[in-house]
């Protein structure tokens, strides 16, 4: 079936397009205007903006820790309305089904779950398989696992570590590596209550710095398209800007992605010894083109923090709102779930909000900085439209700033920033940039041959409203959203890489599991048979 979207304002930064034009979709792909054929379906999208489907690079939507959060907080997600025909469980709040529906309605068609524990990978994939419509991907967490730490202690070769990394990513069916407070979770098991960049993991004799540097090199050696995705030490701690700056130096010019950096943009100024260091961090990022970041913007409201940084989450427990949480010491990272409420009247929360916006607005290249609220840690992904609006209007930001505690404005440069994002920059940050970041060659763009994931938004002054309810969304060329409502489910794919490596590592791992756990390693497999009928995998090419 040939579909035409005509007369829309097409914004496609990958191809430098920012003008009125037509778009043709056929057999799930974007195609060149066919000669001598009239479309089977024709949509007049004049007065609308046409973009590729958006890509969320970091959103905790699936897996054991997310599910613990659901069970911890039944009061947070009472459902209120019945669903439409053909969309089972789509109004079941915080369900996998609702997640797919809500993302699709905002024009997002690909989402990456960034924290899959290798021993719980099958669980994460089971959940991802129940997320309809959108395509999914995931990152595998290493850096607190005994096998790696032992290998580093023993001074093993980079080749051996690369083989281990490649095998683990392949076995867990993901797009690459995430490293979360490297060594910190292991140190916490040994009763350390804080863990810095150059502190030593007891018994292993390695530092956080050494751990992520080795994973960074392994990522390059294996040819994983996505740079190492690092959740740094000292998240949320006043003065942690120094950790962030030192970590960027430690990246040593090699590619690295720093997750939710807003949570590291804190100085020690002011009477509360807590200030925004967003401007300093942005300047450092501008000067280091090997670094990409996502922001982890704080949006005011009730939420829950879900993180595999179990040490940090343990330290957060005393400030939980409401006062409860789950602390899980996993086989490697584990995780913690701690509810929280960000309040506009709270000095610290307001600093966090301002620091995040400073990062968005002061990082010059929109290919280097990405949308996230670190869902749900800074706020739920459903606040993205409000965030788009804030970035696009200095006046709107000024209105919000009037409501912040007065002393906050002295501890941030936000009031002085007048920059407003254009639609082109929004598309760069939410489409072109994420595609490049993950090595997706056929999404996040609108040229011939690209996957026909397309979002159409009605032009309006209320930018939040515009992005909250897409007028039309096509997934693989099929219409799935009309006037902000999901009209039907389609099955998304799960994207993964299949790196090559020396299979000898498998025998070594078999022996390791047998000796340490007395279990066959296959107990932790993600067999495709287990996911039959739920999600099909699609491959993303490696770099070598």
């Amino acid at each position, binding site marked *: 079936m040939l579909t035409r979207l005509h007369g829309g304002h097409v914004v496609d930064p990958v191809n430098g397009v920012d003008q009125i034009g037509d778009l043709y979709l056929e057999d799930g792909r974007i195609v060149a205007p066919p000669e001598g054929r009239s479309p089977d379906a024709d949509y007049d999208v004049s007065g609308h903006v046409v973009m590729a489907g958006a890509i969320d690079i970091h959103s905790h939507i*699936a897996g*054991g820790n997310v*599910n*613990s959060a*659901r*069970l*911890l*907080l*039944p009061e947070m997600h*009472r*459902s*209120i*309305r*019945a*669903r439409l*025909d*053909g969309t*089972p*469980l789509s*109004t*079941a*709040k915080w*369900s*996998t*089904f609702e997640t797919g529906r809500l993302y699709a309605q905002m024009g997002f068609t690909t989402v990456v779950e960034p924290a899959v524990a290798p*021993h*719980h990978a*099958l*669980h994460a994939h*089971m*959940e991802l398989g129940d997320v309809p419509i959108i395509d999914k991907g995931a990152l595998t967490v290493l850096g607190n696992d*005994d096998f790696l730490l032992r290998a580093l202690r023993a001074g093993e070769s980079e080749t051996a570590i690369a083989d281990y990394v490649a095998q683990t990513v392949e076995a867990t069916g993901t797009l690459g590596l995430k490293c979360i407070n490297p060594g910190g979770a292991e140190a*916490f*098991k*040994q*009763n350390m209550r804080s863990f810095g960049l150059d502190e030593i993991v*007891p*018994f292993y004799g390695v530092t956080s710095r050494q751990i992520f540097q080795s994973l960074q090199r392994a990522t390059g050696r294996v040819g994983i398209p996505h740079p190492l995705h690092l959740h740094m030490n000292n998240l949320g701690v006043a003065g942690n800007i120094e950790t962030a700056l030192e970590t960027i130096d430690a990246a040593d010019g090699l590619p690295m992605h720093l997750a939710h950096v807003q949570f590291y943009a804190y100085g020690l100024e002011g009477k509360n010894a807590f200030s925004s260091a967003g401007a300093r961090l942005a300047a450092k990022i501008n000067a280091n083109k090997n670094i990409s970041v996502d922001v982890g913007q704080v949006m005011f409201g009730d939420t829950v923090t879900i993180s595999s940084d179990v040490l940090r989450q*343990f330290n957060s427990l005393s400030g*939980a709102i409401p*006062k*409860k*949480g*789950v*602390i*899980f*010491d*996993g*086989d490697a990272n*584990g995780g913690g779930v701690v509810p929280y409420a960000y309040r506009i009247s709270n000095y610290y929360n307001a600093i966090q909000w301002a620091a995040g916006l400073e990062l968005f607005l002061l990082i010059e290249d929109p290919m280097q900085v990405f949308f996230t609220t670190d869902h749900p840690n800074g706020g739920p992904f459903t606040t993205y439209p409000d965030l788009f609006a804030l970035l696009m209007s200095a006046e709107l930001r000024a209105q919000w700033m009037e409501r912040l505690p007065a002393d906050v404005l002295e501890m941030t440069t936000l009031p002085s920033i007048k920059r407003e994002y254009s639609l082109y920059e929004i598309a760069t940050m939410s489409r072109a940039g994420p595609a490049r970041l993950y090595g997706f060659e056929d999404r996040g763009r609108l040229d011939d041959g690209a996957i026909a994931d397309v979002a159409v938004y009605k032009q309006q002054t209320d930018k939040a409203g515009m992005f909250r309810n897409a007028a039309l969304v096509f997934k693989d060329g099929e219409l799935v959203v009309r006037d902000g409502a999901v009209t039907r489910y389609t099955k998304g794919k799960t994207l993964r890489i299949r790196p090559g490596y020396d299979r000898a590592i498998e025998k070594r791992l078999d022996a390791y599991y047998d000796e*340490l*756990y*007395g*279990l066959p390693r296959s*107990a*932790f*497999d993600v*067999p495709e*048979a*287990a996911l039959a009928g739920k999600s099909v995998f699609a491959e993303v090419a490696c770099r070598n």
Partner: protein
Amino acid sequence: MSNATLDGKSISSEDAYQLAAKILQAARFPLVAGLGADVAGAQAAILLAERLRGAFDHLASRDSLADLEVVRSAGVFVTTPNEARVRADVVLLVGPGLPTYWPGIFDRLALDKDTVHGGETKRRVIWIGPKRGEAKVEGLEIETIPATEAELPGMLAALRARVGGRPVALSAAAAKKLDAHAQTLKAARFGVAVWAAAGLDALIVEMLQGMIGELNATTRFTGVPIGGRSGATGVLQASAWMTGFPPRTGFGRGYPEHDVWRFEASRLVDSGEADAALWISAYDGETPPWESADIPLVTLGPAGAATKRGLYIAVGKPGESYDAVEFAQETSSLVLRRATAPTELPTVAQAIEAINARFSEDLPC
């Protein structure tokens, strides 16, 4: 050959699925209960309950909910059996019957072996409130804190009090003994408590977790829960990601509502609120707990366990006669269990799918 019976008499599979669809579709508020199934079976069953705007419950919900009540009112510290195995230098076993609820417990936790991570040390094992004779395990040195089931809550509370340095109303000798155990817990490097909610109530679990929380002020201490029978934990996980809630959830309003009293299976049947039931018990053919005998009933259970009354459709045993994803106690994760003795019987999910396909068209999808 058919694997279905109606009131004990063999009927064809086709007739059975037709009749099951008719019974469930005719109900105003059907109940999907038992739910003794693998994850795929649970997924199918929950979607069925949602489509019919009925409710669902699991046969061991009481046990899952005892733990969950603590999670959602106070929070918990938990770890995996693997971590306990390689790291726990102090293991506190809590309550009677642990090897019944988890037959592999001693082997899996390797209590007779030294720890590996965080330094190699011999473990200390304390068991509070074992059954008589239960704490005598060959090759294991277990210190016991004797307590009958009735005494267990008080004894655990006293232990927690002594961990926190608070006074207890025990004899000097008993307090001294308890102090020694409290000292062992406080001196743990990475202590792990193991309990089974099936043998405890929520207040005991909360007491235990409260003590663990206090121990974490100075050292590391956490817990390994032993999950409920008949796939309870795997079903709980699927229920959570699909609906946001554990079992005992209803869809009468077209969206999930969770209420541990309102959607409890026996109450729904015995009160007459549910007017038809699908009972699933694929692991061992456990029978429904309700008293009412006249509710129209469709049962999915093992071959050879057909009921004399109602419609019975035989299904395979998850992980034995067909490949099944389920929650593994030994790893506390979802795993794929490969069939050890494959049969031709349908899986739970297939049987439900077959019923689903036979609803008349006026039931929206």
